[in-house]
């Protein structure tokens, strides 16, 4: 690789005079033209790229969201008349809710709903709220939402909070606005978002390379080596089986990682506000909602202090009552051997769990009313619909 040719020993001010063609004025004109064209070309390219990424190549901005969105749209196109139930939640739901096993919902339904798992890794209330906003902005209006409540993610501290792993730059404008409402550094989230629009070729470089030249990407960024979710958005846990010793090791690591939120559990104001916004939006738009507490291993339940467990339960019950939404508490539905670690279900267990969830969510039946979707609480009062 050489250096630019004009770096010879002639000082630049003299280079102009010593160049046979054009003279100093010509060189200046040429220089100005080159620099301004470079700036214009760069700005134009970034603008085009940014618009293209936001509208046509969303997978370059946010591969996880784009992947699930395209699958959801495919399913909707395949079954346009079925009511849509979208699951929002964390990795617990991502690995644990297998819509393929929920293909039919028994009960008084005109036609079986289309269940789609839109859970994301590490998604707590703030991510769930942003995802809902993003879905609505992409004209995906679910008829029902199954919203996971994860105690660990309801508790947010400066060291442990969704913002730390939520990529503002990947969000669309509606998602960013939602995030900024619950972010402790809204300007930082805004700057990251803006930066991704100003220099999309830099901010989306890993996705870009992963899409068009996967062999140039660092192994950790390769999308083609990751297991994609199935057509209903379910992410199958790998490996499908773990040994008891491996499970024990993973549980130990998770307990260390979650030590703080497990001991000093409290619902952070931001998490609470994000959940309430989501519930309010759903009520406003006529979207039926149910809350879901995903299974967890006994090690995780036991590690949570008595007070912490009480606080969590009283919070979710109150929320359920306040918004008149059913609450499904699935914590006692599984055994420790069903998990790959302390909280993620193994594929076979996920299928079993999903079938049971399917039966239970018959309470959360959705049917077509007179032109609008409505939720019917078969069991009567929301608090009474809490099942274990």
């Amino acid at each position, binding site marked *: 690789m050489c250096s630019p040719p004009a770096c010879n020993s002639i000082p630049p001010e003299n280079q102009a005079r010593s160049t046979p063609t054009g003279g100093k004025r010509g060189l200046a004109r040429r220089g100005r033209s080159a620099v301004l064209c470079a700036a214009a*070309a760069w700005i134009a*390219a970034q603008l085009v790229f940014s618009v293209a990424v936001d509208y046509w190549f969303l997978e370059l901005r946010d591969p996880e969201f784009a992947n699930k969105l395209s699958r959801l749209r495919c399913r909707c196109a395949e079954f346009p008349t079925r009511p849509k139930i979208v699951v929002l939640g964390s990795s617990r739901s991502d690995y644990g809710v297998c819509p393929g096993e929920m293909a039919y919902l028994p009960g008084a339904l005109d036609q079986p709903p289309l269940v789609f798992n839109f859970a994301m890794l590490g998604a707590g209330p703030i991510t769930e709220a942003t995802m809902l906003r993003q879905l609505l902005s992409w004209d995906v209006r679910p008829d029902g939402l199954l919203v996971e409540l994860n105690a660990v993610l309801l508790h947010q501290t400066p060291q442990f909070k969704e913002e730390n792993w939520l990529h503002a730059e990947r969000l669309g404008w509606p998602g960013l606005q939602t995030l900024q409402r619950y972010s402790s550094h809204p300007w930082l989230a805004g700057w990251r978002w803006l930066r991704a629009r100003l220099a999309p070729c830099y901010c989306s470089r890993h996705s870009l390379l992963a899409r068009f030249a996967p062999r140039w990407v660092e192994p950790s960024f390769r999308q083609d080596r990751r297991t994609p979710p199935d057509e209903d958005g379910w992410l199958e846990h790998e490996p499908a089986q773990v040994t008891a010793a491996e499970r024990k090791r993973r549980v130990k690591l998770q307990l260390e990682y979650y030590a703080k939120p497990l001991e000093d559990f409290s619902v952070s104001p931001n998490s609470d506000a994000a959940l309430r916004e989501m519930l309010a939006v759903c009520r406003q738009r006529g979207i039926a909602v149910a809350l879901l507490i995903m299974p967890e291993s006994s090690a995780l339940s036991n590690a949570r202090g008595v007070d912490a467990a009480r606080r969590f339960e009283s919070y979710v019950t109150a929320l359920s009552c306040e918004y008149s939404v059913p609450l499904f508490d699935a914590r006692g539905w599984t055994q420790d051997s069903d998990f790959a670690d302390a909280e993620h279900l193994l594929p076979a267990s996920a299928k079993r769990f999903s079938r049971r969830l399917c039966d239970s969510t018959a309470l959360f039946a959705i049917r077509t009313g007179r032109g609008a979707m409505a939720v019917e609480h078969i069991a009567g009062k929301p608090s009474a619909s809490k099942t274990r």
Partner: protein
Amino acid sequence: MLFCSEKFLVFFTIVFLAYWAMPWRRARTYLLLIASFYFYASWNHWLALIIGVSTTIDYFVARSMDATEIPWRRKALLSVTIVANLGLLCYFKYANFFLQSLEQALHAAGSTASLPVLKVMLPIGISFYTFEAINYAVDVYRKHVPAERNLAHFMLFITFFPHLVAGPIVRARDFLPQIAREKRWDWARMQLGVQFFLMGLFKKLAIADRMAMFSDPVFANPENYRTSAIWLGVLAYSIQIYCDFSGYTDMALGSAHMLGFKLARNFNMPYASANVSEFWRRWHISLSSWLRDYLFIPLGGSRGTNWQTNRNLMLTMTLGGLWHGASWTFVAWGVLHGALLIIHREFRGVCEGRSLLKRTIDSAPGWAARVGLTFGAVSLAWVFFRATSFTAAATMFERMFIFHPGEPLPMSRLSLAVLTAVVLGSHALAMSGGWKTLSNRIPAPALGVSYALVLTLALVLSPDSGKAFIYFQF
């Protein structure tokens, strides 16, 4: 604050706009001085204080030297400034190295003495600005340049941010007149600066940092890798260090041009050298010329007997190796280069009496073979430069020359092959003169679009973890 970071982009944009918006030359000098101290202080505030104090001392000593004609006093003042600068360098960079080496020697001799370890932070770029201060003092002593009367100008000469951290090592006679000269906005110069900067950015982000993805894991755990992976790791490091350092230099030259300054050229396609002597005329030119002018020639240069010349060569290269880092592996690297220079010198003597041999090595295939051989020798020497210990270097050599199974490279070889081809192609284009022709004939708008393309490519290809420039540690 790395040249390829957002922080530098913001910093440089502010400095650039303020600099050209200011109509007064003196104000511009002070602006650059403040910016340079801010740039240096962004690493550590105290280190900025150290460079400020040492520069002030150098300034006053040089003024005193210039004010007197008494030889012994001039010599004493020169000694003061050299001892002060080398003392600082030794304390910060070599004190622990010498203490540890002494302790190891004592242990080897049977002693159980344990020497203290000093808790000092290595001021970034100290090797570079120390050499600049020394060459200034020596030049004033030799009356090659007058002592600078303006303290701000002298401080800017030492601390000018584009060259402060990793060179090029500037000479007072080249730089000080530029500070005093009136600067006018010049689009041609701006274009040159942009071109240099983008080229450097591409070298750093798209090539050097990508090559590090191959070389870093191999050098970190050579025992895990198979023979072919080790060879490719060494090749990757050879390209990495060149693109990293010359990329930094290009960015330094580009930033300086955009502010109306010209820095010395530091690289001239070193891997196209046909022998080690030529390599050192093309690699880190500002350091090799410094070593020649301020060490090799004062030692006697090549004026004495063959043995004396070889001794001077070896001494210069050994100290050059030590200059790079406080470790015996760097010393070994310097000794190896000294040995290669001596071998080349002797071989040249052998060729002089044999016309057939001379014709053969001067022919095109002979030249290609010599370039290949030189590249191979230089690349093998990089193993000492990069390895963290002699044991690691020995493992590398063992696995290179004795076939070993093991893991392949951690990433696909495709990007290594393509980027190596890009480097080779650019060299070939530049050597044939095609580069110059192309950049002169291509229409300006097309040139502008190509700049945007280079920037886009550099950003797209930059790996996740931004790596510091290798020469920042020296």
